[in-house]
């Protein structure tokens, strides 16, 4: 187990290095640069800017400077927010995205497992049809619609009571987190419901379930002990990368609910071609994703003892 983990971690470092390099190359190939602005500047001012930010050096030299800095943990200063270090940006905003994301995953996972199991148990009866209809809606309607609708719902709710009970935007208390995390988790919840349903339906027909039933075990015991545990593997598979994606990709939700998370920085950095933030966030996200995948793979071994990884 330990050897496996170490091997994976080492492979992970190599992967992150590849990600950084590919992104760096792509970033410099794309036309435009962080210094361009709506109002063009004279050639002299442009030269001053390039010298100040080291963009007048050849690209390969910039790459090695970047690598050197990255190894010492320094991602430099943002081009768009010129007095903030990229490390500080990640340190200040990632925890917020993480909390939002984890809460969203919590909703999605509990909801997904619950609804999925229900649809499998009541297959082809009313609960199944209703839930599947909601799932279809959940995946066909884009997330920005749900975010807008969710916020509108809160405004109307507050208006009904004549005062602001649940905040419609912002961050700080658990009440601020409820609606945004529910909206963020909706897509994943729909996916997990569907996955859970199909894998439960497979498991339910397995021989060992029939045996358990024939043995006289209670349905609850069968459900939790056997069905759930065997059906949950695809859910876990999906969960790993989804956690990474949700914690860093909540761009729309962060925008609509005015949440100071990292998601906004991801998108805006690319739009502004803010080199340092792009590299910092991509490397961070890459490392986070790789770590989540490693954890999930190790979990596999615990959940299904038959799975051998090496």
């Amino acid at each position: 187990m330990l050897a496996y983990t170490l091997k994976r971690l080492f492979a992970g470092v190599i992967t992150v290095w590849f990600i950084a390099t590919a992104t760096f190359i792509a970033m410099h190939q794309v036309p435009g640069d962080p210094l361009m602005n709506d109002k063009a500047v004279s050639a002299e001012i442009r030269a001053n800017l390039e010298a100040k930010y080291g963009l007048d050096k050849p690209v390969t030299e910039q790459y090695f400077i970047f690598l050197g800095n990255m190894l010492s943990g320094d991602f430099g200063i943002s081009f768009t927010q010129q007095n903030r270090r990229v490390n500080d940006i990640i340190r200040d905003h990632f925890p917020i995205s993480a909390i939002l994301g984890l809460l969203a995953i919590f909703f999605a996972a509990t909801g997904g497992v619950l609804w999925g199991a229900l649809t499998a148990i009541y297959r082809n009866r009313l609960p199944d049809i209703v839930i599947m209809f909601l799932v279809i809606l959940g995946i066909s309607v884009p997330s920005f619609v749900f975010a807008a609708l969710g916020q509108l719902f809160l405004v109307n709710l507050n208006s009904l009571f004549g005062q602001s009970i649940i905040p419609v935007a912002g961050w700080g208390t658990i009440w601020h987190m409820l609606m945004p995390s529910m909206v963020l988790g909706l897509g994943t919840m729909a996916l997990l419901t569907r996955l859970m349903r199909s894998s439960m339906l497979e498991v339910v027909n397995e021989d060992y379930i029939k045996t358990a039933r024939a043995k006289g075990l209670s349905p609850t015991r069968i459900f939790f002990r056997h069905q759930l545990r065997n059906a949950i593997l695809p859910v876990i598979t999906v969960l790993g990368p989804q956690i990474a994606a949700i914690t860093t990709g909540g761009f729309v939700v962060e925008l609509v609910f005015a949440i100071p998370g990292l998601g906004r920085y991801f998108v805006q950095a690319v739009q502004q071609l803010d080199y340092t933030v792009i590299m910092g966030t991509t490397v961070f996200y890459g490392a986070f994703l790789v770590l989540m995948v490693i954890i999930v793979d190790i979990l596999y071994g615990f959940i299904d003892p038959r799975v051998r990884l090496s």
Partner: protein
Amino acid sequence: MAIHASDAVDFESQTLTIALTQEPPQLNSTKATDQVSGTLLGHLMQGLVRYDRRGKVIPGVAERWEMDEKTATFWLREDAKWSDGKPVTAHDFVFAWQRVVDPKTASEYAFILAPILNAAEINEGKLPVSQLGAVALDDRTLQVNLARPTAYFVKLAVFITFYPIRQDFFESRGDQYAAEAKDLLYNGPFKLTEWTHSASLKMVKNEHYWDSENISLNAINVDYITADTRARLNLYTDGKIAFTRLDGETYKDALSQRFRIRRFTTGSTFFLEYNHRPGKPTDNRNLRKAIQSVFDPDEMVNRVLATPGNLRGESLFPVWINGVNDKFRKEYPAPQAGYNIKEAKRYLELAVKELGSIPPLVLLVSDSPTATKQGEYIQGVLLNKLGIELKIDVQTFKQRLAKMTSGEFDIVGAGWGPDFDDILTFGDLFASWNMNNRGRYNNPEYDRLVRLTMNSTDPKTRMDAMGKAQQILFDDAVILPQYEQGVIYLLNPKIKGVARRVIGPDPDFTYARIVP
């Protein structure tokens, strides 16, 4: 019906709460370029002069001044102080301006100090910073030596790039200057006490401000930062913020909530800019004249943009620019083409004779939905009325800038907002040396008129020159004006005295007060 909870405005404590559209990128006044930073700095700091409620230049840190062809002298008031109690001196202005032109700062607005002697040379690295033509004769007297006679210098000095910075404080902070609330010194009506990046800010009344008895507000809270207009409308409806801008879709929701909608023309003009480089089809004057006569200027404003506040696009120079004694556009009315399909077709025939056939033209637009919508409208008109095929090239911000710089377009949707209150801020746009002249329009007569305006101090001479420039822009169809931008917004009715500005901090809450 909205809930007017105490969050948005509070009479007893004279506080109001607003939202910002983005995290302020730069609060270092020597380097800031964007609207959000500019508005914040306009509340937190103050320059030699400032605007009154109605946009007239009045004394700020300087209590009086004198100007002639070679120098401008400013006498500073005694009681102007920084937020740590120390006085604001002429040295602070000299130091700040030296930072602006210092090539190491790489300030994008260094050009605005060009009228000061040696500023341009210092910025190019040819002279040391100490040679800047701004000298502190003593603590309270600032003498500015001008590179050329500049009648509008005092109006220039309102801009944030001219704000003072105290040397000892600046140097004590090093490259952390303006990184956090504690890394700035304030001499304006308000000071920044809290700053949580991307989340919130808090500005409270600066008790050391020289005119603080005339400031009614005690605090301005920025509790939310989001670019989503609908989210801000929701916050306004929920009684959480006191001000928000509306756009073409959210205004209908605001109307149905029975909110008071207000209107403001921002003073920016938007136009289609042609590529005048040789070899491009748009270099052909007849083609441009044809396109000039095929648009009904009312349609863009009334049907496509369809929000109140936008004015018809008639000229590069917007309606608010001052002429000799009255508005420039009243003294020099803009020449109009109007919708004249016969003329358009006549010019098109001439163009076809000269070019052979009209190839599909490329319109470069940004990826914002309004820009794409305008692009589709223009595409429809050109196809229906003239049979010209227009392809819409949607590009994200930086890629669009790169294409504009390298000239990879036939027509580009462009706009310009004023930097200072003088006709030159628009007039010199199409001078051949201006980097913002993306289409590379090159007309020696136009250049001559711009130089004349730059170097003369006689208002009649200058305005006559610009009047002729306006005529050239029309005769040569250098651009096709689309509209003058207007915005609609909501403001809590309990707040009085808010100023909206074309140049300067906008909205300006300095003179605001909350009524019960």
